[in-house]
């Protein structure tokens, strides 16, 4: 074999593992960084907080007088029993769910009555949801104050179940995530946690926050 051909073959043989390792490093770094952003660094993500004074929307009575913008931070969900502490943002599209737990925009917001639906990724913010038990406390810390719920039921349903994201007469909170929690590809089922309200902020906080353009009166109301 001529010398140059042998050299070319050598470079090719050594290049194969180098390319494979380089591809592996690229994939790991890209998705590793994305994963870190959606888990460990989630609390540091800069999110636009909800402001109730948006021109153009019709005004509703009580909490959340105007519709939040997609991706707006509505508050924080806390489930101390399973160490869940994540921001809640408006919307449940793919991009928005990377910012935290998403509020399904077609469902009411906490305090508006009916079935409030929060959804989170099974492999980031809601990984620990699988360990929730009936009776655990769920707190949604909003600009108006804490909405506290108690878990009443846990079930697994097919992803097309039409009876989960539906209006209800009584106020309740529905948490959803994909199931199984460890699965290759898009999971066929959904993990559903239902909770009923235990307490909600004082109505006086609502009026004070609604009057504030920036929503800074919450701390005044709480301290008072």
């Amino acid at each position, binding site marked *: 074999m001529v010398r140059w051909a042998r050299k070319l073959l050598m470079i090719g043989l050594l290049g194969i593992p180098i390319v494979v390792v380089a591809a592996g490093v690229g994939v790991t770094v890209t998705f590793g960084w994305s994963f870190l952003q959606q888990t460990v660094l989630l609390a540091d993500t800069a999110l636009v907080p909800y402001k109730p004074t948006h021109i153009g929307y019709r005004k509703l009575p009580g909490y959340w007088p105007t519709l939040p913008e997609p991706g707006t931070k509505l508050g924080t969900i806390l489930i101390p029993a399973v160490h869940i502490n994540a921001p809640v943002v408006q919307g*449940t599209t793919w991009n928005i*769910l990377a910012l935290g737990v998403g509020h399904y925009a077609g469902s009411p917001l906490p305090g508006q009555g009916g079935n409030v639906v929060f*959804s989170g990724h099974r492999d980031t913010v809601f990984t620990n949801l699988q360990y929730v038990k009936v009776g655990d406390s769920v707190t949604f810390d909003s600009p108006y104050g804490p909405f506290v719920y108690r878990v009443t039921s846990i079930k697994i349903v097919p992803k097309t179940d039409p009876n989960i994201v539906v209006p209800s007469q009584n106020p309740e909170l529905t948490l959803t995530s994909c199931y199984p929690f460890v699965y290759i590809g898009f999971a066929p089922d959904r993990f559903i946690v239902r909770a009923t309200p235990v307490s909600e902020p004082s109505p006086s906080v609502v009026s004070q926050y609604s009057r504030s353009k920036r929503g800074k009166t919450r701390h005044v109301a709480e301290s008072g």
Partner: protein
Amino acid sequence: MIRWKAVLPLVAGITMLAPSTVTLAASSSSIQQAAVQLEDALRSLQIQHVSLLFAYLESIQLSSQEVSQITQNAAQMQKVMGNVSNPNQLTLAQKEEALRLFISSAELAHLQVATVLTNGQPVNLLTYVAQPNNPLLIELEDEQGKLLATIHPQYYDVQPQHLNQFIHNVAIAATSARTIEQSHTFVPMPRGQLPVTATNTPLKIVIGLGLILVGSLMFRPLYRVAHKLE
């Protein structure tokens, strides 16, 4: 070739969302029925995730002038199309008029429209040439530029019966939106769908680590082979 197939139904769709000037008594059952009809109207636009758009459209305040203009635009669009069965038969002037009506209706509905390819490249509808493997996307955004929904125009077909159905739905959906607005509360979507809540990111990280491992294991035997060649 311009995707007029996309433009026409969208104008009709936007018009469907406008509150009617007809006053109706907003009973609980009529509100629920209106919500169902509004949701159906949005789904008829072939939008996969309609919740953000549903919430937005029931929450914005449209003036009677805006509603009236949107309705007129839809009627004008019918005139522009005439009896043409294939939108590509339209003259350039007709196409420009249809596009003007389309943009105007979106703005009146407090929506911004961005037409892009699947790779994110912006598209001028007047000069756009359809590409089979890179279809057009119509992104509907709110006034702040936040994405509410994406329409995939390739689903549409401008057959006469389709158009008639759209126009027929205008009256139904307009009445629905008006009824919902009269409720003075947030009206939830009647048949919401469970969101997709899996990133598969950990799996991708494992794949990346696997590639690093495989590459590392391959290196030694391949190095030996290469060394023998030397």
